[in-house]
């Protein structure tokens, strides 16, 4: 892969990225930005849309925690933006969700320039909140050594951390640090739009083959992690009893749904009048087994799975937010992988790939027919 190499003094990638963005602003390739930024109380991060140089400078493009999944933030711009070249810096999983939502017209990609970066994973919000300052420190270290001890469980299993020849996600530009010389980072064009931008900036394109090996290694590690963790997970998910047990702690708060970038419905079916039953119905249900968890939550979980697993990007936001520490993200990711395989579909792989359920292919599912 080819790309441009830029300086990041003292390995401060955030600073390097910001100066790249600001040079883009000067050259007119960007006119505004959507970036992650520390909140005034310095204990969390939020997304801002800005064209102000000062705000860009105080932003943190690569932040230690994922609070609002980026796609959810972009969704609030779906009716249009006043600026036309908004550079958006987000994680690969956020990019993938952005692409999924764009297929449902929830995000308009026309005015956005999507910039992804090599993501080592993020810290669990809860751990970070215990001591934000320490969290910053820990994360800065992770950015350099990619040690996955302190990152979220779901991140440990993520193999879509960087761009490589085999396309697993799309953005316009990709910031890469893996395998790049100390105090440097590189930018790869990951789309037509990206190529145009790098051309416009007249930066020297260099071969970045040095990153092939480290990227491959990380991906392999992650895949192995996933395999290992799935060995444990799968038996907990197969069969109704197991599944029921898996979600038994669920308190129906539905925060998993609220933070999910893919759950786009305004009124969730499972919160609508359609699932309101009368007392008689509930009693009848309870009397078949003698007792019944009230309100039952398994149907919600399975229902949400059927609705969004095709587009699940395994961002782990749900698991991070679950007050009961259910491994909901990992469960969805497992089911999602399998469903996506059925349709040979990878959410967020490309701008053009249509949602499988919105297209009809004559040959699909032939094997099930007989």
């Amino acid at each position, binding site marked *: 892969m080819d790309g441009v190499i830029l300086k990041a003094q003292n390995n401060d990638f955030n600073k390097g990225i910001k100066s790249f963005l600001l040079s883009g602003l000067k050259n007119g390739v960007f006119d505004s930005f959507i970036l992650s930024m520390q909140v005034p109380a310095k204990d969390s991060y*939020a997304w801002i849309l800005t064209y102000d140089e000062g705000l860009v400078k105080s932003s943190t493009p690569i932040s230690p925690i994922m*609070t609002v999944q980026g796609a959810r933030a972009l969704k609030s711009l779906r009716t249009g933006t006043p600026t036309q070249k908004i550079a958006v810096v987000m994680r690969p999983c956020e990019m993938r969700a952005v692409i999924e939502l764009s297929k449902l017209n929830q995000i308009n990609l026309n005015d956005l320039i999507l910039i992804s970066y090599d993501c080592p994973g993020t810290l669990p919000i809860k751990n970070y909140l215990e001591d934000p300052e320490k969290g910053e420190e820990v994360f800065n270290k992770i950015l350099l050594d990619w040690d996955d001890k302190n990152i979220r469980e779901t991140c440990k299993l993520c193999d879509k951390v960087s761009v490589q020849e085999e396309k697993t996600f799309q953005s316009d530009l990709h910031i890469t640090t893996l395998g790049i010389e100390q105090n440097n980072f590189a930018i790869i064009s990951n789309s037509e739009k990206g190529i145009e931008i790098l051309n416009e900036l007249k930066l020297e394109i260099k071969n970045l083959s040095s990153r092939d090996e480290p990227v491959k290694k990380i991906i392999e590690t992650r895949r192995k992690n996933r395999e290992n963790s799935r060995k444990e997970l799968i038996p907990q998910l197969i069969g109704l009893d197991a599944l029921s047990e898996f979600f038994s702690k669920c308190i129906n708060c539905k925060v998993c749904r609220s933070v999910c970038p893919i759950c786009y419905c305004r009124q969730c079916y499972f919160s609508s009048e359609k699932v309101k039953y009368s007392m008689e119905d509930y009693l009848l249900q309870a009397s078949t087994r003698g*007792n019944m968890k009230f309100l039952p939550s398994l149907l919600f979980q399975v229902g949400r799975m059927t609705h969004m697993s095709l587009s699940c990007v395994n961002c782990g936001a749900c698991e991070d937010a679950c007050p009961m520490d259910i491994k909901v993200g990992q469960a969805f990711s497992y089911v999602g992988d399998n469903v996506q395989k059925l349709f040979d579909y990878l959410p967020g792989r490309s701008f053009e790939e249509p949602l499988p359920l919105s297209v009809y292919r004559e040959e699909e599912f032939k094997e099930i027919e007989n």
Partner: protein
Amino acid sequence: MNKKIKINKSVETGLKELLISLLESRKIKAVFTLERNKDAVYYSLITDLEKVDQASPFLPFMPANGGKLLSKLTDIKSISEPIAAVIHPCELAAFIELIKKQQGSLDNLLIISSVCPGVMPINNISETNLDEKIKKYFESAKNSNIPTGLRENCEICSRIIPTNADIIINLMDKDIDNSFELYINSEKAEKFLGDENGEILDSDFDFANNTFPQNIKDIISQKEKNRIAVNEKYKFDQLGMDGLIDLFGKCIGCHSCGGVCPICYCELCDFDSAEHEYKKNVLKSDLNSRAGVRLPPNTILYQLGRLNHISTSCVGCGMCTDVCPVDIPVGMIFSSIGNSVQELFKYIPGENLEEANPITVYKKEELTNFED
């Protein structure tokens, strides 16, 4: 109706046996109460008397506000056959607030509640030394102490007496491991209970006139003190805009607090509707007036809006804090501000089914002190 029934059994066994006998005699069709299964705790609708044994009616947890659940059970229409429900005082209060919004009905519900020592944060359920903790909890309650490790909200909650319940059990009672007392607080309860259940005595509680034994009074005043202390700590009344931003700055707009809130009864929250999405021109003017805007918008406005919408009815149950993924003390804020608002209107949510929510009625003299 100052009567109580004394039952010479430990409180949990005694209550379960009572419930079983009610089921057996078909006086009730089902029991709604807490159940614990390994590290899961949930409300359960039990119809089979053999399953009552699995229940843990007094487990100090609140997986969901029971008032909200009872509303779901009785929303479409009232219950046709009696059900006994064991819930906490704040859950009952929430339920009554919902009934005022036509979202439920007390018909045929036999409400059993307790003088409540409080509950623990819901995620404690997975802790390894939980049984030990629960034991300690009951030990404190028995000795009229406030248990440790409660929800923050429970620490400042002085509405520990479920004055509207049909049957009330005092958990702050020294003898509770050997005998306990059921206070019969309604005609409905009298229909279900009689001397076959135990010895009938005169009650030392007068729920109608708020007369309680000294140990309970002490706890209430301790909790009131706690509330004042918390108010002083957070200074909710002096936050100002910056303070609010500091407090809610972390909010990610997931709206889970509203999702679990029993008082948030709207089918579709206004803040989830398209009304609260950025419109292009609004965004443009926002960007012109400020250097940057936050995405998604209105996270703080949501909190203020919700506060506005529910503060008169907030029962301070603390569900919201429990589910907040970014650890904002939502429940404390709402409870404190709710409390002040409720004081303004002299309104106690859930106290009286007949009393209308103050924002739905107009009184000529109200808030006159703000007029100048």
